Protein backbone atom coordinates (compact mmCIF):
# COMPACT_ATOMS: atom_id res chain seq x y z
CA UNK A 1 0.00 0.00 0.00
CA UNK A 2 2.83 2.33 0.90
CA UNK A 3 4.44 1.69 -2.47
CA UNK A 4 1.26 2.43 -4.40
CA UNK A 5 0.41 5.62 -2.49
CA UNK A 6 3.88 7.11 -2.55
CA UNK A 7 4.56 6.19 -6.15
CA UNK A 8 1.21 7.62 -7.18
CA UNK A 9 1.75 10.89 -5.29
CA UNK A 10 5.35 11.25 -6.51
CA UNK A 11 4.55 10.54 -10.14
CA UNK A 12 1.53 12.84 -10.10
CA UNK A 13 3.72 15.58 -8.67
CA UNK A 14 6.46 14.84 -11.20
CA UNK A 15 4.05 15.19 -14.11
CA UNK A 16 2.42 18.29 -12.62
CA UNK A 17 5.83 19.93 -12.26
CA UNK A 18 6.85 19.02 -15.81
CA UNK A 19 3.80 20.90 -17.07
CA UNK A 20 4.53 23.84 -14.74
CA UNK A 21 8.12 24.14 -15.93
CA UNK A 22 7.26 23.75 -19.61
CA UNK A 23 4.34 26.13 -19.33
CA UNK A 24 6.45 28.74 -17.52
CA UNK A 25 9.03 28.72 -20.24
CA UNK A 26 6.40 28.76 -22.99
CA UNK A 27 4.76 31.84 -21.49
CA UNK A 28 8.07 33.60 -20.99
CA UNK A 29 8.86 33.16 -24.67
CA UNK A 30 5.49 34.60 -25.63
CA UNK A 31 5.99 37.65 -23.44
CA UNK A 32 9.56 38.24 -24.64
CA UNK A 33 10.99 41.44 -23.25
CA UNK A 34 8.74 43.69 -21.25
CA UNK A 35 9.11 46.46 -18.70
CA UNK A 36 7.14 47.47 -15.65
CA UNK A 37 7.30 50.67 -13.63
CA UNK A 38 9.06 53.91 -14.51
CA UNK A 39 7.65 57.42 -14.92
CA UNK A 40 6.14 56.75 -18.37
CA UNK A 41 3.79 54.26 -19.95
CA UNK A 42 5.78 51.50 -21.68
CA UNK A 43 4.71 50.23 -25.09
CA UNK A 44 5.82 46.75 -24.03
CA UNK A 45 4.26 46.75 -20.59
CA UNK A 46 4.51 43.47 -18.69
CA UNK A 47 1.05 41.85 -18.55
CA UNK A 48 -0.86 41.39 -15.31
CA UNK A 49 -0.24 37.97 -13.83
CA UNK A 50 3.29 37.69 -15.21
CA UNK A 51 4.46 36.78 -11.69
CA UNK A 52 2.53 33.53 -11.94
CA UNK A 53 4.70 32.52 -14.88
CA UNK A 54 7.88 32.92 -12.85
CA UNK A 55 6.33 31.13 -9.86
CA UNK A 56 5.28 28.21 -12.02
CA UNK A 57 8.78 27.90 -13.42
CA UNK A 58 10.58 28.08 -10.07
CA UNK A 59 7.87 26.20 -8.18
CA UNK A 60 7.94 23.46 -10.80
CA UNK A 61 11.66 22.88 -10.31
CA UNK A 62 11.31 22.85 -6.51
CA UNK A 63 8.35 20.48 -6.79
CA UNK A 64 10.50 18.02 -8.71
CA UNK A 65 12.82 17.80 -5.70
CA UNK A 66 9.87 17.04 -3.44
CA UNK A 67 8.57 14.44 -5.89
CA UNK A 68 11.99 12.81 -6.06
CA UNK A 69 12.13 12.65 -2.26
CA UNK A 70 8.75 10.91 -2.06
CA UNK A 71 9.63 8.56 -4.90
CA UNK A 72 12.84 7.44 -3.20
CA UNK A 73 10.94 6.38 -0.08
CA UNK A 74 8.26 4.36 -1.84
CA UNK A 75 9.57 0.94 -0.77
CA UNK A 76 9.03 -2.38 -2.53
CA UNK A 77 6.10 -2.95 -4.89
CA UNK A 78 3.52 -5.63 -4.06
CA UNK A 79 5.15 -9.01 -4.60
CA UNK A 80 8.44 -7.55 -5.75
CA UNK A 81 11.96 -6.69 -4.66
CA UNK A 82 12.90 -3.25 -3.31
CA UNK A 83 13.53 -0.98 -6.30
CA UNK A 84 17.00 0.22 -7.22
CA UNK A 85 15.75 3.82 -7.60
CA UNK A 86 17.70 4.41 -10.78
CA UNK A 87 14.49 5.53 -12.47
CA UNK A 88 14.34 8.68 -10.38
CA UNK A 89 17.14 10.07 -12.54
CA UNK A 90 14.83 9.89 -15.54
CA UNK A 91 11.77 11.28 -13.79
CA UNK A 92 13.73 14.15 -12.26
CA UNK A 93 16.61 15.03 -14.57
CA UNK A 94 15.30 13.98 -17.96
CA UNK A 95 11.77 15.10 -17.05
CA UNK A 96 13.01 18.53 -16.02
CA UNK A 97 15.10 19.19 -19.11
CA UNK A 98 12.70 17.65 -21.59
CA UNK A 99 9.84 19.68 -20.18
CA UNK A 100 12.03 22.75 -20.64
CA UNK A 101 12.72 21.65 -24.21
CA UNK A 102 9.01 20.99 -24.84
CA UNK A 103 8.05 24.42 -23.50
CA UNK A 104 10.73 26.08 -25.61
CA UNK A 105 9.85 24.29 -28.85
CA UNK A 106 6.11 24.83 -28.34
CA UNK A 107 6.86 28.49 -27.71
CA UNK A 108 8.66 28.77 -31.03
CA UNK A 109 7.03 26.21 -33.31
CA UNK A 110 3.79 25.28 -31.51
CA UNK A 111 0.32 25.91 -32.97
CA UNK A 112 -0.23 28.86 -30.63
CA UNK A 113 3.35 30.09 -30.84
CA UNK A 114 3.75 33.83 -31.11
CA UNK A 115 7.21 34.39 -29.67
CA UNK A 116 7.89 37.84 -28.34
CA UNK A 117 10.89 39.96 -29.28
CA UNK A 118 14.01 37.82 -29.01
CA UNK A 119 11.91 34.82 -28.04
CA UNK A 120 12.55 32.70 -31.13
CA UNK A 121 16.34 32.55 -30.99
CA UNK A 122 16.33 32.16 -27.22
CA UNK A 123 13.69 29.44 -27.39
CA UNK A 124 15.59 27.37 -29.93
CA UNK A 125 18.82 27.57 -27.93
CA UNK A 126 17.07 26.58 -24.71
CA UNK A 127 15.11 23.84 -26.50
CA UNK A 128 18.11 22.09 -27.99
CA UNK A 129 20.11 22.45 -24.78
CA UNK A 130 17.22 20.91 -22.85
CA UNK A 131 17.05 17.97 -25.26
CA UNK A 132 20.77 17.26 -24.88
CA UNK A 133 20.81 17.67 -21.09
CA UNK A 134 17.73 15.48 -20.70
CA UNK A 135 19.26 12.73 -22.83
CA UNK A 136 22.16 12.80 -20.37
CA UNK A 137 19.81 11.41 -17.71
CA UNK A 138 18.92 8.43 -19.90
CA UNK A 139 22.59 7.88 -20.64
CA UNK A 140 23.46 7.92 -16.94
CA UNK A 141 20.69 5.42 -16.25
CA UNK A 142 21.99 3.11 -18.98
CA UNK A 143 25.57 3.36 -17.75
CA UNK A 144 24.46 2.59 -14.20
CA UNK A 145 22.67 -0.56 -15.37
CA UNK A 146 25.69 -1.72 -17.33
CA UNK A 147 27.94 -1.23 -14.33
CA UNK A 148 25.67 -3.39 -12.18
CA UNK A 149 25.24 -6.12 -14.79
CA UNK A 150 27.58 -9.15 -14.35
CA UNK A 151 27.43 -9.83 -18.07
CA UNK A 152 29.35 -6.69 -18.76
CA UNK A 153 32.27 -7.47 -16.49
CA UNK A 154 35.58 -8.16 -18.17
CA UNK A 155 36.50 -11.74 -19.13
CA UNK A 156 37.09 -13.97 -16.08
CA UNK A 157 40.39 -15.11 -17.51
CA UNK A 158 41.84 -11.62 -17.33
CA UNK A 159 43.04 -11.79 -13.69
CA UNK A 160 44.67 -15.19 -14.33
CA UNK A 161 46.46 -13.80 -17.36
CA UNK A 162 47.72 -10.91 -15.27
CA UNK A 163 49.11 -13.35 -12.68
CA UNK A 164 50.76 -15.42 -15.42
CA UNK A 165 52.34 -12.31 -16.85
CA UNK A 166 53.65 -11.37 -13.41
CA UNK A 167 54.98 -14.84 -12.86
CA UNK A 168 56.58 -14.96 -16.26
CA UNK A 169 58.36 -11.66 -15.95
CA UNK A 170 61.44 -13.01 -14.18
CA UNK A 171 61.95 -15.56 -16.97
CA UNK A 172 62.63 -12.82 -19.45
CA UNK A 173 66.09 -12.53 -17.99
CA UNK A 174 66.47 -16.21 -16.87
CA UNK A 175 69.68 -17.81 -18.06
CA UNK A 176 68.19 -21.09 -19.41
CA UNK A 177 65.06 -23.16 -19.75
CA UNK A 178 65.91 -25.52 -16.92
CA UNK A 179 66.20 -22.85 -14.26
CA UNK A 180 63.09 -21.18 -15.59
CA UNK A 181 61.18 -24.45 -15.22
CA UNK A 182 62.53 -24.88 -11.68
CA UNK A 183 61.33 -21.43 -10.66
CA UNK A 184 57.99 -22.08 -12.29
CA UNK A 185 57.62 -25.30 -10.34
CA UNK A 186 58.48 -23.46 -7.14
CA UNK A 187 55.72 -20.91 -7.82
CA UNK A 188 53.26 -23.72 -8.42
CA UNK A 189 54.14 -25.38 -5.13
CA UNK A 190 53.83 -22.09 -3.30
CA UNK A 191 50.32 -21.77 -4.71
CA UNK A 192 51.05 -18.67 -6.75
CA UNK A 193 50.14 -20.50 -9.94
CA UNK A 194 47.31 -22.88 -10.67
CA UNK A 195 47.98 -26.15 -12.41
CA UNK A 196 46.53 -24.81 -15.65
CA UNK A 197 48.66 -21.67 -15.50
CA UNK A 198 51.73 -23.78 -14.75
CA UNK A 199 51.09 -25.98 -17.76
CA UNK A 200 50.59 -22.99 -20.04
CA UNK A 201 53.83 -21.36 -19.02
CA UNK A 202 55.71 -24.65 -19.06
CA UNK A 203 54.62 -25.27 -22.64
CA UNK A 204 55.77 -21.79 -23.57
CA UNK A 205 59.22 -22.31 -22.03
CA UNK A 206 59.63 -25.64 -23.76
CA UNK A 207 58.54 -24.09 -27.04
CA UNK A 208 61.00 -21.22 -26.66
CA UNK A 209 63.72 -23.74 -25.97
Amino acid sequence: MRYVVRTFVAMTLFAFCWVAVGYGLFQMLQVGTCASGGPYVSARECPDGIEAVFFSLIGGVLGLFVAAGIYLTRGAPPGGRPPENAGVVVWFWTGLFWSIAAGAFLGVWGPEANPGPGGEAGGLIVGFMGLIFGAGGLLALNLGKRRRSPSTRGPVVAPAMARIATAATPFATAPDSLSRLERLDRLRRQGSLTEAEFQTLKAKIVEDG
Partner: protein
Amino acid sequence: MATEGSGFNPTAVLVHLVAIALGLYLGWIAMDRISPDLPDASVEPGVSATGEVAGDDAQSLLRPANLEPALTQLAGQMTAGEGLVRLHIEPGTLESELNSGDGLFQPTDVPADAPVVLTQTIDSERGGAPIDLDEIAYMDLVATRDGPRWYVQLDTSRDVGPPPWTYGAPIAGGPIEVGPGPPKPVPE
Protein backbone atom coordinates in the same frame (compact mmCIF):
# COMPACT_ATOMS: atom_id res chain seq x y z
CA MET B 1 9.25 0.84 -13.23
CA ALA B 2 8.52 -2.31 -15.23
CA THR B 3 11.46 -4.09 -13.64
CA GLU B 4 10.52 -3.28 -10.06
CA GLY B 5 10.04 -6.60 -8.40
CA SER B 6 10.72 -9.82 -10.23
CA GLY B 7 10.36 -9.13 -13.94
CA PHE B 8 7.35 -7.28 -15.32
CA ASN B 9 5.25 -5.78 -12.53
CA PRO B 10 1.83 -4.67 -13.80
CA THR B 11 0.97 -2.85 -10.56
CA ALA B 12 4.07 -0.67 -10.81
CA VAL B 13 3.45 0.12 -14.47
CA LEU B 14 -0.21 0.95 -13.86
CA VAL B 15 0.50 3.20 -10.88
CA HIS B 16 3.14 5.10 -12.83
CA LEU B 17 1.02 5.58 -15.94
CA VAL B 18 -2.16 6.63 -14.16
CA ALA B 19 -0.26 9.05 -11.92
CA ILE B 20 1.56 10.63 -14.86
CA ALA B 21 -1.70 11.07 -16.75
CA LEU B 22 -3.37 12.64 -13.72
CA GLY B 23 -0.39 14.94 -13.07
CA LEU B 24 -0.32 16.15 -16.67
CA TYR B 25 -4.05 16.81 -16.61
CA LEU B 26 -3.97 18.68 -13.29
CA GLY B 27 -0.93 20.65 -14.44
CA TRP B 28 -2.67 21.64 -17.66
CA ILE B 29 -5.80 22.80 -15.80
CA ALA B 30 -3.81 24.76 -13.21
CA MET B 31 -1.55 26.48 -15.73
CA ASP B 32 -4.48 27.41 -17.94
CA ARG B 33 -6.05 29.25 -15.00
CA ILE B 34 -2.99 31.40 -14.24
CA SER B 35 -2.24 32.26 -17.87
CA PRO B 36 -1.74 36.03 -18.23
CA ASP B 37 -3.06 38.13 -21.13
CA LEU B 38 -0.02 38.34 -23.35
CA PRO B 39 1.10 41.63 -24.91
CA ASP B 40 1.20 42.13 -28.67
CA ALA B 41 4.62 40.90 -29.74
CA SER B 42 4.64 43.18 -32.80
CA VAL B 43 4.69 46.36 -30.71
CA GLU B 44 8.05 48.15 -30.84
CA PRO B 45 9.48 49.48 -27.57
CA GLY B 46 8.47 52.99 -26.64
CA VAL B 47 7.28 55.20 -23.82
CA SER B 48 4.65 57.87 -23.61
CA ALA B 49 3.67 60.54 -21.10
CA THR B 50 0.11 60.65 -19.87
CA GLY B 51 -1.94 63.47 -21.35
CA GLU B 52 -1.08 66.21 -23.87
CA VAL B 53 2.48 67.48 -23.63
CA ALA B 54 3.89 70.51 -25.50
CA GLY B 55 7.57 70.87 -26.41
CA ASP B 56 8.38 73.37 -23.71
CA ASP B 57 6.32 71.76 -20.93
CA ALA B 58 8.03 70.56 -17.78
CA GLN B 59 7.07 66.96 -18.72
CA SER B 60 8.37 67.30 -22.29
CA LEU B 61 10.54 64.42 -23.46
CA LEU B 62 12.66 66.95 -25.34
CA ARG B 63 14.06 68.04 -21.98
CA PRO B 64 17.18 66.17 -20.77
CA ALA B 65 15.74 65.53 -17.30
CA ASN B 66 12.81 63.63 -18.87
CA LEU B 67 14.54 62.11 -21.87
CA GLU B 68 17.12 60.31 -19.75
CA PRO B 69 14.67 58.20 -17.68
CA ALA B 70 12.56 57.64 -20.79
CA LEU B 71 15.58 56.20 -22.60
CA THR B 72 16.32 53.97 -19.61
CA GLN B 73 12.73 52.73 -19.68
CA LEU B 74 13.02 52.13 -23.42
CA ALA B 75 16.22 50.12 -22.95
CA GLY B 76 14.40 47.90 -20.46
CA GLN B 77 12.01 46.80 -23.21
CA MET B 78 14.75 45.79 -25.62
CA THR B 79 16.29 42.35 -25.98
CA ALA B 80 20.02 41.69 -25.90
CA GLY B 81 21.33 41.84 -29.46
CA GLU B 82 18.76 44.35 -30.62
CA GLY B 83 19.74 47.87 -31.67
CA LEU B 84 17.89 51.02 -32.66
CA VAL B 85 17.43 51.84 -36.33
CA ARG B 86 15.36 54.90 -35.52
CA LEU B 87 14.44 56.80 -32.38
CA HIS B 88 11.48 59.13 -32.80
CA ILE B 89 11.11 61.79 -30.14
CA GLU B 90 8.04 63.96 -29.76
CA PRO B 91 7.24 66.06 -26.70
CA GLY B 92 4.92 63.36 -25.32
CA THR B 93 6.18 60.13 -26.87
CA LEU B 94 9.31 58.19 -27.58
CA GLU B 95 9.01 55.56 -30.31
CA SER B 96 11.57 53.18 -31.72
CA GLU B 97 12.31 50.93 -34.63
CA LEU B 98 14.55 47.98 -33.85
CA ASN B 99 16.72 45.59 -35.75
CA SER B 100 19.79 43.47 -35.20
CA GLY B 101 23.09 43.84 -36.99
CA ASP B 102 25.90 46.32 -37.42
CA GLY B 103 25.66 50.11 -37.47
CA LEU B 104 22.79 50.38 -35.01
CA PHE B 105 22.82 52.36 -31.79
CA GLN B 106 21.64 51.84 -28.23
CA PRO B 107 19.54 54.10 -25.99
CA THR B 108 22.65 54.67 -23.89
CA ASP B 109 24.37 56.22 -26.93
CA VAL B 110 21.81 59.00 -27.14
CA PRO B 111 22.91 62.26 -25.48
CA ALA B 112 19.92 63.36 -23.43
CA ASP B 113 20.72 67.05 -23.90
CA ALA B 114 20.88 66.77 -27.73
CA PRO B 115 17.32 68.06 -28.39
CA VAL B 116 17.97 71.24 -26.38
CA VAL B 117 21.43 71.78 -27.90
CA LEU B 118 20.09 71.23 -31.44
CA THR B 119 17.17 73.59 -30.86
CA GLN B 120 19.54 76.32 -29.68
CA THR B 121 21.79 75.74 -32.70
CA ILE B 122 18.84 75.90 -35.10
CA ASP B 123 17.60 79.07 -33.42
CA SER B 124 20.96 80.79 -33.87
CA GLU B 125 21.21 79.48 -37.45
CA ARG B 126 17.80 80.77 -38.57
CA GLY B 127 17.58 84.19 -36.98
CA GLY B 128 14.15 85.79 -37.41
CA ALA B 129 11.34 84.06 -35.49
CA PRO B 130 12.71 82.49 -32.31
CA ILE B 131 12.86 78.68 -32.25
CA ASP B 132 12.25 77.03 -28.91
CA LEU B 133 11.29 73.49 -27.88
CA ASP B 134 7.66 74.45 -28.57
CA GLU B 135 8.53 74.86 -32.26
CA ILE B 136 9.90 71.32 -32.61
CA ALA B 137 7.44 68.85 -34.16
CA TYR B 138 9.73 65.87 -33.68
CA MET B 139 13.33 64.73 -33.74
CA ASP B 140 14.50 61.46 -35.24
CA LEU B 141 17.83 59.84 -34.55
CA VAL B 142 18.52 57.45 -37.42
CA ALA B 143 21.29 54.86 -37.82
CA THR B 144 22.99 55.66 -41.14
CA ARG B 145 26.14 54.49 -42.88
CA ASP B 146 27.94 57.49 -41.41
CA GLY B 147 26.70 56.74 -37.90
CA PRO B 148 23.54 57.92 -36.12
CA ARG B 149 22.20 61.25 -37.44
CA TRP B 150 19.57 63.62 -36.13
CA TYR B 151 16.72 64.77 -38.32
CA VAL B 152 14.71 67.67 -36.90
CA GLN B 153 11.31 68.73 -38.18
CA LEU B 154 10.00 72.12 -37.12
CA ASP B 155 6.30 72.47 -36.28
CA THR B 156 4.96 74.37 -39.30
CA SER B 157 1.60 74.90 -37.61
CA ARG B 158 3.37 77.44 -35.46
CA ASP B 159 5.03 80.67 -36.43
CA VAL B 160 8.42 79.33 -37.45
CA GLY B 161 9.01 81.57 -40.45
CA PRO B 162 9.85 80.50 -44.02
CA PRO B 163 11.56 77.24 -45.04
CA PRO B 164 13.81 75.40 -44.53
CA TRP B 165 11.94 73.54 -41.81
CA THR B 166 14.19 70.50 -41.55
CA TYR B 167 17.69 70.16 -40.13
CA GLY B 168 20.20 67.35 -39.81
CA ALA B 169 23.19 66.79 -37.55
CA PRO B 170 25.50 64.02 -36.35
CA ILE B 171 24.63 62.39 -33.03
CA ALA B 172 27.00 64.71 -31.17
CA GLY B 173 25.04 67.74 -32.37
CA GLY B 174 27.18 69.56 -34.95
CA PRO B 175 27.91 70.68 -37.60
CA ILE B 176 24.28 71.29 -38.53
CA GLU B 177 22.92 70.55 -42.02
CA VAL B 178 20.14 72.81 -43.34
CA GLY B 179 17.12 71.43 -45.19
CA PRO B 180 18.06 67.77 -45.66
CA GLY B 181 15.70 64.97 -46.58
CA PRO B 182 15.06 62.17 -44.07
CA PRO B 183 18.24 60.12 -43.56
CA LYS B 184 18.48 56.66 -45.09
CA PRO B 185 18.66 54.08 -42.32
CA VAL B 186 20.90 51.00 -42.17
CA PRO B 187 20.58 48.10 -42.73
CA GLU B 188 18.82 48.95 -46.00
